[in-house]
């Protein structure tokens, strides 16, 4: 019962006595601190669904900054979760995308928590490139007195696993900052490890703050980025979306197999913007599952327990685990079990090159088959596997043109290993087992770093192959909005005749003016190969004029070749047309990136 004996004061007599006793013991500074604390507590309590903060929480005396560098949005999600948790504990903090962070502030930072993913061959996420250049460059400030910790996201199938996180971890220490906690590296199943790291960091900082009271900072209410409203369907709760169209959109005789796939999102409440991606929680090919079970010599209905839940191995291998690409962790596990000399040799530090070649050329079933081990326990086996990760595809549609639909442009990954045909997990599913009416679990992955500018701003879109997908969404959107800004598309593929993806749509948009210009490069139509960057350079004067005119530049497609080649072409064009030196041209392009006028979605 909390009925008050004192009219107008909603406190129990016992509570009031405690407040009175406390207030008599306080000095003026402590009073001011507590008033701030209670104000923050009040703000926190007003937010629905938020757990009540622990009563012992205290505000930190040190400023906390959370920086995230993200390619697909996972690091951003974690950064924001960290901020929310810190605020709950009364820790004042700001959160910032490395892409937006004013690097000159770094010298003033006190505590910095970093969440960063790795991209490609140990590179930072593309939007964080500028931040890395600054931090790793000569202009980076001394960070004596600052403290930091790094949560690194990565994918252990790559040789340079979590490398971007490792680089910042090493560099912050080199710059004089104190490491708050050892770096934590997370694989694609990062959720649990990230959660523990967040909890540990928040507890540690909250405990310190309590031990050393300081003037209050307003908690919670000062969130630098608004926390997105929770949607009904997300990565953890994908929407079962029916396939409504699935057809090859390359002509006869193509060397490609590119498909156009449409999902219905009707009833999902999911919305997206042009530039966003669709996540697909793909399941493994049943044939691959049964092949692996055969190789293991285990029946598909063999049961085991994981985190207190019972599974059949067949079901688990179909829906829960990656069973194609092998990881170094799996290699270690299988080397141990099989005691195969060849696998053990690959474990040596100095065999990294051979190891990565071996992992590229051996799927899990290949290893199991080649180095057979008897009496495998299902539970032990799956413990060496990574959870199956959803795959992301750039959306090729705009909701304003195709309400309640999500269109994708998918080029199935196909190759042969050890005499048998292999397919990408999701792309193979989409190409081979996603007839119309098939239902697949999907969610929207926001991509805030690939966005249309204002309607009247010119856009320069550069894409090869399926990288043209988001530009279809862009033009659908601009057409629907009646946007007046100029647009120019550079598209590359192999053969004009068969591979000109969405050809009649571009032709239509060129005709009605939605698309102002288009240049195409088909690399296999003639002996000398022509790529989009060649077309850009042929039009260098106009490209530069568009840049000077404020155009936003987009690059989408292959990360290994297209992205660096186009980047170099931009620098060359600027250098040639502005008659500047190489460094000035690089600065020019860098400033495009810093102004978010040069955005990439490469993979």
């Amino acid at each position, binding site marked *: 019962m909390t009925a008050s004996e004192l009219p107008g004061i909603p406190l129990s007599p016992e509570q009031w006595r405690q407040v009175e006793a406390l207030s008599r013991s306080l000095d003026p500074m402590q009073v001011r601190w507590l008033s701030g604390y209670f104000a923050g507590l009040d703000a926190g309590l007003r937010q629905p669904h938020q757990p009540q903060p622990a009563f012992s929480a205290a505000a930190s005396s040190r400023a906390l900054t959370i920086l995230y560098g993200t390619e697909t949005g996972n690091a951003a999600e974690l950064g924001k979760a960290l901020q929310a948790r810190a605020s709950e504990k009364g820790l004042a903090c700001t959160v910032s995308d490395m892409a937006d962070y004013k690097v000159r502030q770094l010298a003033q930072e006190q505590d910095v928590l970093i969440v960063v993913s790795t991209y490609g061959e140990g590179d930072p996420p593309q939007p964080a490139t500028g931040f890395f250049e600054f931090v790793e460059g000569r202009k980076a400030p001394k960070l004596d007195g600052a403290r930091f910790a790094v949560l690194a996201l990565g994918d252990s199938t790559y040789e340079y696993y979590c490398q971007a996180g490792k680089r910042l971890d090493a560099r912050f220490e080199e710059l004089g900052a104190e490491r708050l906690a050892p770096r934590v590296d997370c694989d694609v199943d990062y959720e649990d490890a990230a959660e523990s790291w967040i909890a540990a960091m928040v507890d540690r900082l909250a405990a310190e703050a309590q031990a050393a009271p300081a003037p209050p900072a307003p908690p919670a209410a000062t969130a630098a980025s608004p926390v997105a409203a929770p949607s009904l369907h997300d990565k953890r709760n994908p929407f079962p979306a029916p396939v409504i169209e699935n*057809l*090859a*959109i*390359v*002509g*006869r005789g193509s060397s490609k197999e590119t498909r*156009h796939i449409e999902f219905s999102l009707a009833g999902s409440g999911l919305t997206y913007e042009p530039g966003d991606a669709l996540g697909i929680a793909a399941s493994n090919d049943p044939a691959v599952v049964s092949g692996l079970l055969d190789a293991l010599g285990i029946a598909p209905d063999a049961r085991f327990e994981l985190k207190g839940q019972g599974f059949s191995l067949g079901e688990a291998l179909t829906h829960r685990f990656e069973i194609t690409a092998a990881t170094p962790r799996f290699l270690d596990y299988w080397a141990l079990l099989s005691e195969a000399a060849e696998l053990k040799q690959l474990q040596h530090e100095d065999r990294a090159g051979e190891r990565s070649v071996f992992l590229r050329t051996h799927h899990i079933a290949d290893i199991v088959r080649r180095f057979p081990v008897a009496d495998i326990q299902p539970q032990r086996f799956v413990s060496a596997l990574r959870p199956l990760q959803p795959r992301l595809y750039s959306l090729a549609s705009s909701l304003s043109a195709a309400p309640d639909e999500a269109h994708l442009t998918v080029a199935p990954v196909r190759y042969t290993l050890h005499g048998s045909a292999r397919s990408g997990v999701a792309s193979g599913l989409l190409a081979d087992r996603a007839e119309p009416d098939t239902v697949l679990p999907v969610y929207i992955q926001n991509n805030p770093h690939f966005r249309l500018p204002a309607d009247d701003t010119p856009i320069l879109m550069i894409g090869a192959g399926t990288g043209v997908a988001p530009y279809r969404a862009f033009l659908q959107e601009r057409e629907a909005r009646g946007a007046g800004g100029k647009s120019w598309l550079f598209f590359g593929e192999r053969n*004009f*005749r*068969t591979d*000109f*993806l*969405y*050809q*009649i*749509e*571009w*032709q239509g948009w*060129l005709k009605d003016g939605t698309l102002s210009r*288009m*240049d*195409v490069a088909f690399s296999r*139509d*003639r002996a000398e190969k022509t790529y989009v960057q060649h077309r850009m350079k042929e039009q260098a004067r106009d490209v530069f004029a568009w840049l000077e005119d404020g155009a936003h530049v987009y690059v989408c497609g292959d990360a290994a070749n297209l992205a660096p080649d186009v980047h170099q072409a931009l620098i060359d064009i600027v250098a040639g047309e502005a008659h500047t030196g190489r460094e000035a041209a690089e600065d020019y392009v860098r400033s495009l990136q810093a102004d978010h006028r040069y955005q990439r979605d490469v993979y």
Partner: protein
Amino acid sequence: MTDAPAIDRSRDISQPLDRLSADERMKDASDQLRGTIAIGLLDRITGAVPSADDVKLMKFHGIYQQDDRDVRDERRRQKLEPAFQFMIRVRLPGGVCTPAQWLKLDELARAHGGETLRITTRQTFQFHWVLKDSLRPIIQGLHDTLLDTVAACGDDSRGVMCTVDPQSSRFHAEVAALAKRVSDHVIPKTRAYHEIWYGNERVAGSEAGAGPEEPFYGRTYMPRKFKIGFALPPSNDIDVYAQDLGFIAIGGEEGLEGFNVVIGGGMGRTDQAPETYPRLASPVGFVPADRVIACADAVMAVQRDYGDRKDRQRARFKYTIDDKGLDWIKGEIERLMGAPFEGARPFTFTSNGDSYGWNTTPDGRHHRTLVIENGRLDLRLLDALRDVARVHRGTFRLTPNQNVIIAGVRDDDRPAIDAILAEHLPEPDDFSVLRRNAIACVALPTCGLAMAESERYLPGLLDKIEAIMAEHGLSGEPITVRMSGCPNGCSRPYIAEIGLTGRAPGKYNLYLGGGFHGERLNRMIRENIGEAAILEVLSDVIGRYSREREPGEHFGDFTIRAGIVREVTEGRFFND
């Protein structure tokens, strides 16, 4: 002008352009066939030439834009434009080419033409499956060997035909040379072709409006295509009565004397448009050999000036003649020629087919006719003929029946050629008489006009007709069978003994009663029928022919005599 007052000039070139058809205005505005073709060739977003006017103008340059109709619908669903491609028709007067030219054509076909060449019913080559970027390489390659494609299509004088049958070889060289002179004389003079395809600079003074680039054709060329051919009796292989202007060579003891002239032939008609019809050319008299060019000029000038320029369906010379009257037209020609026609001389045609196998002419040269089914040179035939071309010292002649003659072989070269043919074509004469006398147009999948299959379907249909012939003991009997995928009649179906023109996929009009050597039109006996009905009719009629025919009577003549079809005496009665 000297027009007779009765002559209606409300539909011809004397009228202001805005009263004539849109195509007339298009030609006038084309800057003598230039249009914007050169710009369209640079457009990388489409495999077509984007301007519809340029597509029409390119015909004057010998180029048809087409698309692979087999995949048209499939590509639409794939969000791809139609599989645009081009057909390029070579101008090859009289159908004669040298081994060096053959080798070049072969090379270009392999590189840019889908590894195939087609021999047309007008004695020339067509490249098919040519992509836009390959147009210039092909045309420049042809230029290297002194060939071009000027006016192989379009509203102008098409390639001039000439009998190549070795049986008629007494004046062949002389007449073939004349055919080439006429061809050179009547082709358009515009420099547009050189500028667009060879990249030549525009010559000063040829700017739009600067002066007459085309002294004969002017700015609007002919009302429609205009076809000229030379026949050497007794062969009527060129189907001289199907030409707008036909010359029938007349020889005497002294050699070539001149030509009987026939005017106003043409096959094209439109279904459900009775004002259109095929017409056989009408004889107008004889001209001595030295007046051939003047005669051609005069005939073409009459059609240029009086042809219908309002309605393209009625723009061929045959309608001008029937509308104005043959006598008036003849008089006008004589006036322009500056001399009257002499009386026609006697001559005899015996066939419009080819002489197969080896023939030897009095000059001691040997000529080998190879049967090329539907004129389609596939890789196997290209290989064989490339090997022949490497050793051959005579010429190649293309026949109007779409066959190839290895002509002018010397005694000592014959074994080598036989050996090559035996190696590549082990069964050279594996064709029935029926098949040798059959012609099909290209139709699907490349021709934009086709309503039904032709080249791809006729061989299978012939198998079934051959079975009927065999059943009635007629396997050795020559009957001309010609099929076109549409009523325009590129295979000259209306003068076949059995004619078929496409109406819809699997459906054809069936015609009977044409003359064996092209002297009489046939008549439609059944309309819009499928294969079963076609075979039923043919089985019945062929059965009767086997039982009731008179000795030596041709199938077409029989169907008239037996009353199965009524004779068509003139084109304008074709639809009666």
